[in-house]
């Protein structure tokens, strides 16, 4: 059985949304930052069980410093959300709770994965020291550059989508 599901990636500018998608879909990474304008769409099939394949249609939305300004029409019919923040820039996670509340209020019952990206640039000590800011909300600490937990994050969401 094959199912198509739409997922969107949200978060501030430059947190690595496009890099995570590129790593997941094409298994590549580049240090050259190119800002996403509007939306970019890619897809990848994920085998979640022996008999079920989820065809993820991934909408890479342009970064937005205020999540409330995300174009609502891009969010229509979304089956899953990935919220990405940058572990090295506090401005991208200082309103984490507020942003997640906004998502849960406006897109109720949609599975969300919260991701702290650029793990390769911080130490475990740093994560421990900032546990209060990250741990209650974060599902995965990823690194698109080092390919840390990227596949795991997408495939876990894909599994949640068929539950």
């Amino acid at each position: 059985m094959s199912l198509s599901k739409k997922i969107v990636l949200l978060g501030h500018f430059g947190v690595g949304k496009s890099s995570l998608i590129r790593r997941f879909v094409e298994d590549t990474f580049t240090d050259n930052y190119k800002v996403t304008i509007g939306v970019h769409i890619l897809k990848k099939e994920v085998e979640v069980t022996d008999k079920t394949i989820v065809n993820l249609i991934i909408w890479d939305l342009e970064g937005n410093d205020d999540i409330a300004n995300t174009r609502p029409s891009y969010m229509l019919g979304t089956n899953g959300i990935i919220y990405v923040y940058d572990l090295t820039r506090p401005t991208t996670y200082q309103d984490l709770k507020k942003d997640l509340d906004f998502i849960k209020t406006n897109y109720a019952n949609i599975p969300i994965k919260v991701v702290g990206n650029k793990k390769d640039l911080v130490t475990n000590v740093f994560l421990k020291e900032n546990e209060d800011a990250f741990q209650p909300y974060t599902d995965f600490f990823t690194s698109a550059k080092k390919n840390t937990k990227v596949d795991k994050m997408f495939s876990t969401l894909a599994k949640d989508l068929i539950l």
Partner: protein
Amino acid sequence: MNQEDKLKVLKDILLTDEREYASSIHKKIKILEETVNKKNNLSEKVDPIIEDRLQEFIKEIPKTLGPTITETLKSEIKNSQDAVVEAMYPILGRMIKKYIQNEIQVLSEKINQQLNNTFSFKNLKRKIKSKMSGVSEADLIINELQQTKLNQFLVIEKGSGLLISKYSKTDDIDEEMVAGMLTAIKSFVEDAFKSNNQELELINYETYSIYIQNFSSYYIAVAISGVFQAEHRSKLEDKLLDFAQNVINKTDLKNTESLTKKLKAYFSNEFI
């Protein structure tokens, strides 16, 4: 045995090894001389070595000389644009001329074919149309030849942009990504114009058009090649409305296979 003979015997005893060594050296020099002086022998020995070095050199050229050659070519082209244009112009001119000649010939053959069917009903109809509309018969024929071709049909869920069904005669696009991007473009345009109950209906891309027929929960996007005028648009709209109202039902929208079959059957004629 005199002194001389004794000396000779002594020499023989003492210098046997040296003589043998000298003789073997002599033989080796002889072989070397033969190898060096005879072309065939020399090339047999040297050719494989040169060949290996040459192959290595060829392999290394793109790495070592490639960037320099590219840079040189770039700067040469930049600095001598007039010379490049002068050199290219006759070649491009000939190519374009040949292409146009070929296209005109094809068109002329088609027009002749149409005119030869003088007694056909279609021809008679065209003559009457020409008389009544004032448009020349030739223009009408050319118009007929530029037929509008329906290339691809995508049935897309509104909002999510997920592909419900597709029917296409060629497999040159990734329909799922196109469906998503079309939906994103549609959403953007509709948001940007802040228009209530107005929706994007047509996208033109050089010789291609994408016609969008909106329904409540889905829309059908049709990729069209050729001339797409108001008349064609109206006909296509009628067909799509008829398809949505009389051919498919709600269950088909959840069953990709059955919807694809129905699309294929209903739009089997690729011309409007």
